């Protein structure tokens, strides 16, 4: 049978008091795609960083191709044919593709010769694996999908036989992710071994041969992918049964709470991103906006929440207009009952250097509940934070912890708790579960549906089609700045996918 490419035996690793990996045993067969799933903080990335020499295990043994290996630096890993594509790309943004590929693997002290050699080698790799990238393009001008391709080429250029990908689809559009999977299958056909770290179970089912599940630093199971199910994996990951599709009753749509009319928005370069859009959101319903990232959804959200200037059109909140000149006071909108969970929680939703309790009132900090005269009422704020921590199961449950030290899923819960607990009439949510674990997704979806059942209007924008279909009472599909279709929740993935790709619109135009 297939020989093991990598064996990990009894790996332990602690960071201070946190045991990130305990007694991990793992065997990865050569020429397969092996998935590793687990919630955020389960220790997947730590394990792979040990394999790549970025960290040293406290104890345990690594064998590569059957031979005991000592991997102390990434250089050792590279020499053993291990390549890694990190979650956050390790690229120099203002360098060209070629410069990034040769960095650290230059064949010569002078760049000219190194680059010339790399260029012909790159052409060979591109032909062999169908990885087209312009070698002279500057990284920051490339879409993320192509940047990732550069990372893969970087590893292959260094002669990687074993390729580790850490959450590779987190930043990709569905089409880009599909393309990535085709590339990975091709690598496998060429005899390479691929290790895929992810928390998206759909990807595991779609592409891997075997899958290992990690939970709280331990390896809880390894399965053959075709002999397992999404439900089983989810249960193994979370340690309890998980509802992948939240149950919900019929929507009882009430009065129009949010009315968008003929809204047009341009981005900073002057390109029209939202093109004459009109729709309503009623109380007691969830309206989902589906679409491939970059089709104007972000600009739409920003315009409605008063952050971005609109060129023309109007947005009515409970029958009264919202200031669309870009000078809207977010505090005033909050007072009027509009809550906004931004897409980019790191830059817009949270101050990562603040403590959890400070972030849990951010934007509402001048509410009399949190004040004592002109000063912050620390006791009230802490009590409020503890309350939210309990209600939203935010972990670790320490309101004094710096927000940056929470996992992505828990950060998202902090933002959601803050906005939902203000009891707004209208809730706008961008990418509610981006980078969030399966267990937390279930929780967040339940919360949003509870909001709806209380008669609130909820507008959800997501690039995850599953999420849109599971949550929405009505689905609007955006393509190139326009709403190209409205469907009910029963719409199939294929139908929505075609709309998202703009197929119907092109046919109509032809």
């Amino acid at each position, binding site marked *: 049978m297939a020989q093991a490419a990598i064996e990990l035996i009894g790996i332990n690793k602690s*960071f201070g008091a946190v045991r990130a990996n305990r007694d991990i045993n793992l065997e990865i067969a050569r020429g397969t795609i092996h998935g590793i799933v687990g919630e955020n903080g389960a220790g997947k990335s730590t394990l792979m960083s040990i394999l*790549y020499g*970025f*960290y040293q295990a406290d104890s345990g043994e690594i064998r590569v191709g059957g031979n005991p290996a000592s991997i102390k*630096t*990434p*250089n050792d890993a*590279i020499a053993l044919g291990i390549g*890694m594509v*990190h979650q*956050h790309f*390790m*690229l*120099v*943004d*203002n*360098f060209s593709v070629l*410069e*990034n590929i*040769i*960095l*650290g*693997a*230059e064949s*010569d*002290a*002078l*760049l*000219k010769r*190194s680059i010339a050699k790399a260029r012909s080698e790159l052409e060979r790799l591109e032909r062999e694996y169908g990885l087209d990238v312009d070698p002279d393009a500057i990284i920051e001008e490339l879409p993320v999908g192509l940047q990732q391709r550069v990372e893969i080429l970087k590893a292959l250029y260094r002669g990687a036989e074993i390729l580790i990908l850490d959450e590779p689809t987190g930043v990709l559009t569905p089409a880009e992710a599909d393309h990535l999977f085709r590339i990975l299958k091709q690598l496998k056909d060429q005899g390479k071994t691929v290790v895929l770290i992810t928390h998206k179970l759909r990807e595991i089912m779609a592409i891997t041969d075997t899958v290992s599940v990690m939970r709280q630093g331990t390896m809880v199971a390894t399965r053959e992918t075709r002999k397992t199910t999404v439900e089983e994996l989810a249960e193994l990951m979370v340690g309890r049964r998980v509802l992948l599709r939240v149950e919900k009753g019929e929507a009882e749509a009430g009065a129009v709470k949010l009315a968008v009319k003929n809204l047009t928005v341009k981005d900073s370069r002057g390109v029209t991103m939202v093109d004459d859009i009109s729709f309503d959101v009623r109380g007691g319903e969830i309206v989902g906006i589906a679409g491939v990232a970059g089709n104007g959804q972000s600009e739409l959200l920003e315009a409605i929440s008063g952050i971005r200037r609109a060129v023309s059109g109007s947005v009515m909140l409970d029958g009264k207009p919202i200031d669309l000149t870009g000078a809207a006071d977010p505090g005033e909108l909050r007072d009027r009952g509009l809550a906004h969970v931004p897409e980019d929680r790191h830059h817009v939703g949270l101050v990562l250097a603040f403590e959890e309790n400070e972030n849990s009132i951010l934007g509402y900090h001048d509410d009399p509940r949190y004040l004592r005269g002109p000063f912050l009422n620390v006791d009230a704020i802490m009590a409020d934070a503890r309350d939210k921590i309990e209600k939203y199961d935010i972990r670790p449950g320490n309101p004094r912890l710096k927000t940056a030290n929470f996992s992505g899923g828990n950060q998202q819960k902090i933002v959601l708790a803050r906005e939902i607990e203000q009891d707004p009439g209208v809730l706008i949510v961008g990418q509610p579960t981006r980078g969030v674990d399966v267990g937390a997704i279930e929780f967040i979806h339940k919360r949003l549906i509870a909001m709806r059942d209380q008669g609130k209007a909820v507008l959800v924008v997501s690039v995850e089609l599953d999420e849109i279909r599971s949550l929405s009472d009505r689905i609007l599909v955006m393509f190139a700045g326009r709403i190209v279709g409205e469907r009910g929740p029963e719409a199939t993935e294929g139908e929505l996918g075609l709309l998202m790709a703009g197929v119907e619109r092109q046919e109509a135009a032809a």
Partner: protein
Amino acid sequence: MDFVNAIVQVLDSTIRLSVPLLLACLAGLFSERSGIFDIGLEGKMLVGAFAGAAAASVFHSAFIGLGMAILISVAFAMVHGFASITHRGNQIVSGVAINFIAAGSTIILGQAWFQQGGRTPALQPGERFESITAYVISNFLSTYSFSTASFADFLASIRGLILYLPALLIDALARIPGFGPIFAELVLGHSILVYFAFAMVPFTWWVLFRTRFGLRLRAVGENPAAVDTAGISVAWLRYRALICTGILTGVAGAYLSMVQNGGFVKDMTAGKGYIALAALIFAKWKPVNAMFACLLFGFLDAASIRLQGSPLPIVGKVSAQFMQALPYVLTVVLLAGFIGKAIPPRAGGVPYVKER
């Protein structure tokens, strides 16, 4: 003719005044391109100036002085590296500390060793870098002869033979009527350190953009994690960048005390390290731009000296203080308004910590 003369003289002193700025600016370029902010250029120049002049006057050799200037300046750069690379300290604090230590220690040591109020003894001929003038060249040409009398003579003769053709060419250029005197004034008549400084501009460019070391150095200033995962030591790379910085600030210091001045005077850098930093930003961290930026600042300095006390058209006589302040005022105006968006190396100022 008087006017042309005045212009040539201002341009000539522009070159002389630009040199320490240019060397310090290129020094800062190496450091900042590697992601280490270096506000301690000033201090490193100062210790270089002191060490150079002190060693030159003790050992009676300009080259020993230069070597000592470089050595001490590199040592201070390593202190900055130890604090900010190895111990991930704040780079601004470390740089400021170096400036303070430099300002204090040069005066104390100068007084303790030479008892001249913090000065070093006035440098004698042979202890300073002499100017290479048209006279020196024609003298060399007329007295050159090949000798094998002793081994030392033989070596000197070989060296002379290599220099003979360029000297002949320069001599011929200097003799062209009209052009010759201007050429002699502007290009000739400088010490070897001036030519070194200007030669460093294309050299720095070549190192940064044409060599493996340069590629890695620029990469570590933009995204050290990319360098680390590529299997290259971030710390060692940054230390090497700081060695380059130390060498160049050492030469800059030596130029101040051994060329521009005949010895060390306390606080003789007088803010040049900071002006060099301003020039670096103005130049958007590019070597050729850095040269023009330093020439501009040098020109402002030269013009202000030249115009002191002489009446200007329209505005009349301007006070000396205003003229002295002019370069600094223009620095602020230029930096605030004219350079557009200067994007610094992205990892600048941030100690590299492996993320968890």
